[in-house]
Each structure stands twice: as structure tokens, then as C-alpha cells.
């Protein structure tokens, strides 16, 4: 098996690397963006190859999808003359990079042989986690604090974006194809998102993946002007953005106050608590991501 797989891996790596180099080095920005989206897709294949289906999902939805839309939107909003690459290539920089590459690769290679990890510990703890999918267990139970803060990161990105007071995403004219497909795509994403969320407790999937999908759906709807521009004025929007992190925090406090400790779910409730948290987090993620992509609707405009 080794040889064929190795060749496959090698090809995968080469494609990835050449795409990456191309993204960096290609002359036109537009090409660069397109190549980057392609890179994201290849990357999600790589994840799958490396036995990380939930990451592949997340990468496809978040890395390639949403980031791609964001990049395109930014491209559309930028002056064309700014899209030129640096005119000269600095061999000094290349030399430095190559030297660094040798050093870095030499340092990374030994890692393959030192299988130190938390696998055993995590497996041991799975029983008490309330979920069966280990990634979800880590995300929402073992290292729930990271996830909580991540929601805050999203919130912060949204706040930061908001107060830049940019006009909302400029789309000159709704793309006819999008118009046509949007109505079907959006419910589909919602269904898939819901499924992913539900599945997250036992298999690949979970809040982020489903949130990303839902966000994609929302974006499509927004681009079709099916839903109005997202604005901070709407209480339900605020509520949905904040509910994930807010509820998570409340749970954290309650566990600290009433329970055994900070984020220490009571064993009997842990499954349902995690589900509620995931659900709310999904809403938050979806709305926030969509909002981040489509931009703030100014109250005045």
C-alpha cells in the first residue's frame, strides 16, 4: 500500500505546494484568488486523505467557500491599479526562505516519529464527555473554553468590521444564475447544516461546519435580496450573534457557581447542554459569518 499511497500523497503535496507558490507568485490578483480557492479545495481533499472528514467539511465550507466569497468581494471593492504584484523578485528573500525551509523541514521531520499525544487520555475521557464524537467532545467539553473564546473572536471580528462603517457588500447586479439557484440552494444548506449539527455529537460535523453552511445559505439569500441587509438595529440579529457566546458563558458561570467548577458540566446534563450550546453556537456562527461577508447595513442608508 505504501508506494501507491505515497505517490498519491506526493502528488497531493506537490499540487498543494505548486498552487500555493502560484497563489503567491502569480501576476494578477484575480488569478491569485481563483487559485487560492482551488488551493482550499485541494486542501480539503488533503484533510480527507489525512482522515479528518470534519475538517474537510469545515475547510470546504469555511476555507474555500466563505473565504473565497470574501476575497472576491474585496477584490470587487478595490481599485484595480492596486492589484499588481511587487515588480521585482528579491533573490535575497528567496534565499532566506530556502534557508529557512531547510531549517524548518529538518526540524519538522523528526516529529513524525515521536507520537506523543493526548489520544489515550482523550479516549479515556470520552465516556464522561456526553458525546460520542471525539472532536466534538474536545471542542465542547475538554477544551470548551477555547471554543467559547473562539465565539468571542468571531464576535470581535464582527464588531471590528462593523465599526469600519463600510457600505455593505457591493454587488452591481445580482448574478442571474445565482438568482435562479439561490432559492433552492438556501433551504438545502439549512437542511444540510441542521444535519451536520445533529450528527456532530457522534460523527464528523458540528457547530462550525453547520454554521458555515448556514452562513453560506444566508449569504446567498442576502445576495438575492431575499433577506434584508443585516443591521445592528435588529434585536433578533443581535440576539442571534450573541446567543452562542452568551449562553456558553452563562453555563460556564453556572457550573462554577452551582456545579463542580468552571465548565464542568454535570454528568447527567452534559449531552443536552452540549447540544444546546452547539445549537446556539451554530446560530451565532452562521449569522456572524454571513454578516461578516455581506457587511453591515447602515441604519442611515
Amino acid at each position, binding site marked *: 500500500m505504501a508506494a501507491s499511497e505515497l505517490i498519491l500523497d506526493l502528488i497531493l503535496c506537490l499540487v498543494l505546494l505548486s498552487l500555493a507558490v502560484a497563489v503567491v507568485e502569480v501576476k494578477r490578483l484575480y488569478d491569485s484568488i481563483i487559485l487560492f480557492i482551488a488551493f482550499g479545495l485541494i486542501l480539503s481533499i488533503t484533510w480527507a486523505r489525512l482522515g479528518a472528514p470534519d475538517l474537510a467539511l469545515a475547510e470546504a465550507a469555511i476555507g474555500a467557500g466563505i473565504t473565497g466569497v470574501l476575497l472576491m468581494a474585496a477584490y470587487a471593492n478595490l481599485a484595480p491599479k492596486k492589484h499588481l*504584484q511587487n515588480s521585482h523578485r528579491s533573490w535575497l528573500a528567496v534565499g532566506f526562505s530556502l534557508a529557512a525551509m531547510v531549517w*524548518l523541514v529538518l526540524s519538522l521531520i523528526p516529529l513524525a516519529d515521536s507520537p506523543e499525544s493526548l489520544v489515550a487520555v482523550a479516549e479515556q475521557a470520552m465516556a464522561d464527555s456526553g458525546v460520542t464524537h471525539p472532536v466534538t467532545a474536545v471542542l465542547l467539553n475538554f477544551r470548551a473554553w477555547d471554543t467559547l473564546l473562539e465565539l468571542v473572536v*468571531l464576535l470581535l471580528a464582527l464588531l471590528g468590521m462593523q465599526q469600519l462603517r463600510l457600505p455593505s457588500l457591493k454587488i452591481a447586479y445580482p448574478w442571474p444564475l445565482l438568482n435562479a439557484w439561490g432559492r433552492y440552494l438556501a433551504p438545502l444548506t439549512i437542511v444540510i447544516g441542521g444535519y451536520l449539527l445533529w450528527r456532530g455529537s457522534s460523527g464528523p460535523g*458540528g457547530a462550525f461546519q453547520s454554521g458555515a453552511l448556514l452562513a453560506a445559505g444566508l449569504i446567498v439569500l442576502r445576495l438575492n435580496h431575499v433577506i434584508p441587509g443585516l443591521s445592528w438595529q435588529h434585536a433578533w440579529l443581535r440576539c442571534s450573534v450573541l446567543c452562542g457566546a452568551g449562553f456558553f458563558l452563562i453555563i460556564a458561570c453556572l457550573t462554577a457557581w452551582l456545579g463542580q467548577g468552571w465548565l464542568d458540566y454535570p454528568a447527567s446534563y452534559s449531552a443536552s447542554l452540549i447540544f444546546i450550546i452547539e445549537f446556539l453556537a451554530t446560530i451565532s456562527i452562521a449569522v456572524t459569518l454571513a454578516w461578516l461577508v455581506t457587511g453591515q447595513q447602515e441604519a442611515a442608508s
Partner: protein
Amino acid sequence: MTLSLQLFLASGGILWLTGLYGLWRNSDPIRRIISLNIMGSGVFLVMVTLARRETSTDPVLHALVVTGLVVAVSATAFALRLAVASQQEKR
């Protein structure tokens, strides 16, 4: 298997460096942001590869990658917005 892992690890490192190089050599903000994403991908690749070292994958690393992805996408979104805003002011 180890060879393959080593390959992916090296690729991760090189990806990271490629992104770094792109960030270094490009002056366009969007390209810089893309380069950052490539850097991030490199790190994630290393992480996912490391998760594969044992028979069962390491859920912790996967979870970290998920977290990292979300952080990356939010940061990218914000950065792109900021890039657009900063360019617009110049007009």
C-alpha cells in the same frame, strides 16, 4: 506511513514558508491576506498530519484545527474589510 507523514509535515512547513514569503514580498493587502491564509493552511497541515501519527487520530489536534480555521476566517474577513476601508480612504 512515516515517510508519508514526513512528506506532509515538510509540505506543511513549506506551505507555511510560502505564505510567509508571499506576505513578505507582496505589497497588495489582499495578497498578503491570502498569503496569511496559506501560512495558516501550512500550520493546519502540520497539525492534521501530526494527528495521524497513531492508529486512532488525535481528536485534540482536529479540534484545534477547527478552532484555528474559525479564527482564521474571522480574522480574514476583518482584515479584508479593513484593507478595503484603508484603500478606499486613499481615493
